[in-house]
């Protein structure tokens, strides 16, 4: 059940340009770890050739229906409409047939119980942090620092709060929470609890800033990266990032899909990470 055909249960706009899709996925929760992802495509028609990678936001169950059937398990993705593939996704309906490959990749490492965990999410980068928060909350205090350009980019924060996560919101334009970058909130947070572990996912400039902050303070960091992906399973070698110690003579490439998407900061070569993985069509974020 790693490559399965299924259907959409719902597909709703969450905030302008962001959608939540529920996909029927019996047995999926037993396999999925926080930080893993899926490769998705619609079966009805393929606007694009390749599947699209999306983080697993949450696993849930539909309430049992009247006939006393067992509750239906689903997986949830949150996605931002950015290009051709996601534009078509937003027009999919309940019942439409889709294909899911996953769960894929290496997820987050829960780290030391008890020690504070700080989750840093930028925009849609929030996605993989929810299942992580669910897991961490069992053993550790968890804080979420959530950033976005405007209030529209701040997603699902109340769902984290419902888990008991302390959440702090900042927006570039101050339209929700504090005005400023989420990294400023991180600096403050680390002043209070310097022994925390940080988990970050978001746009590359944010990830790089988080890395600088953590590295200079000796704070443990795990990041979830995005990369252009064709296969999602380590076969095409399209999604590589440079690993620590990489040089032209001794190349150390890591597959984001298989060895990631979550990496401990020490695994990576940070020297030109942002520059070389800035693949987004004209995306300056």
């Amino acid at each position, binding site marked *: 059940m*790693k*490559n399965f055909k299924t259907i959409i249960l719902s597909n709703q706009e969450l905030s302008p340009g962001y959608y939540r899709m529920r996909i029927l996925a019996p047995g999926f929760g037993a396999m999925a770890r926080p930080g893993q992802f899926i490769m998705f*495509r619609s079966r009805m028609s393929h606007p*694009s*050739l*390749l*599947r699209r990678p999306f983080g697993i936001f949450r696993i849930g169950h539909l309430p049992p229906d009247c006939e006393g059937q067992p509750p239906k398990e689903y997986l949830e993705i949150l996605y931002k409409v950015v290009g051709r593939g996601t534009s078509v996704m937003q027009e999919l309906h309940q019942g439409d047939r889709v*294909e899911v*490959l996953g769960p894929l990749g290496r997820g987050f490492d829960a780290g030391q119980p008890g020690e504070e965990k700080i989750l840093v999410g930028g925009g849609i980068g929030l996605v993989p942090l929810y299942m992580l928060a669910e897991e961490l909350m069992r053993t550790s205090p968890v804080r979420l620092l959530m950033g976005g350009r405007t209030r529209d980019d701040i997603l699902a924060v109340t769902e984290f709060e419902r888990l008991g996560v302390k959440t702090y919101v900042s927006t570039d334009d101050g339209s929700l929470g504090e005005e400023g970058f989420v990294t400023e909130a991180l600096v403050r947070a680390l002043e209070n609890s310097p022994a925390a572990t940080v988990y970050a996912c978001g746009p590359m400039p944010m990830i790089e800033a988080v890395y600088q902050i953590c590295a200079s303070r000796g704070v443990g960091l795990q990041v979830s990266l995005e*990369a*252009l992906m*064709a*296969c*999602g*399973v*380590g*076969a*095409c*070698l*399209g*999604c*590589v*990032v440079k690993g620590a110690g990489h040089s*032209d003579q001794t*190349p150390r*490439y890591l597959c984001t899909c*298989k060895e990631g998407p979550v990496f401990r900061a020490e695994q990576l070569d940070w020297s030109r990470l942002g520059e*070389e*993985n800035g*693949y987004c*069509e*004209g995306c300056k974020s």
Partner: protein
Amino acid sequence: MMDSRKKRPSLAVEIAGIKMKNPVMPASGTFGYGEEYAGYLDLEGLGAIVTKGLSLKPKAGNPTPRIAETTSGMLNAIGLQNVGIDGFIEYKLPFLREVNTPVIINFFGNTLEEYGEVAQRLSDIPEIAGVELNISCPNVKQGGIVFGTDPVCAHEVVAHVRKYLKKPLIAKLTPNVTDIAVVARAVEEAGADAISCINTITGMAVDVRTRRPRLANRTGGLSGPAIRPIAVRMVHQVVQAVKVPVIGIGGIVEAADALEFLIVGASAVQVGTANFVDPSAMADIIAGLEKFLVEEGIEDIRELIGSLEL
């Protein structure tokens, strides 16, 4: 005739002495070293396993971005990243040894001598059923010229490898040529036991906002369903030009696509980009071929090969 519809049709083929359960195998570079897809389809159900291209020494490949999606296709400039022969023997071969399917090693060299050296090394590995010689990769420039675009160079490299190789030799052709039949005849004459084609077609895509090529390498190889009509045409040309068996490659996604290649005369096919899109693609294609044979009342898939009506 009526009875034939009841028993299962035979899908088995033989290419250059390599016996295959069916004519479907992965295209080099799209299936890793087999292991990557073990969880998604039964490797023993495949006709053969073709590995990622190997070179004498490990190779780092190109900087990123290495892939770009295009309409019904993708560009890649992986740059032939691979673990090298020693790495292959140490890390990848042990897994493949346990799989009851012929293993074909795709390989390349940077110089004529290196091609020969790799051929010699591969000759000593008993688990290898055959080799596929990549003389056609558009990403690796050899003083600016690609072996496979010139019939004389193509002849030279195949003849050189032939001298050192004690295995069935499949020469893989590039489509970036005016007349692929000429190159096909050259490699046949040089001693290739079979020909596979096509490799990717050189292409380019531009990010219009940044005004930079979408691949760090600027150009890359186009693959996927977009190129299928070009591949079918070239396989058709090659089949008519040579006597050795031909393996058809290019944009195969489903059974009907594979059938096009078989009908124009390919003795087997390779599936590339479709593996990325759906890891079970080859299993579905094999099932689809069998279904087609049953529906058409054909007992043996070899009856179909070259059955094009003109």
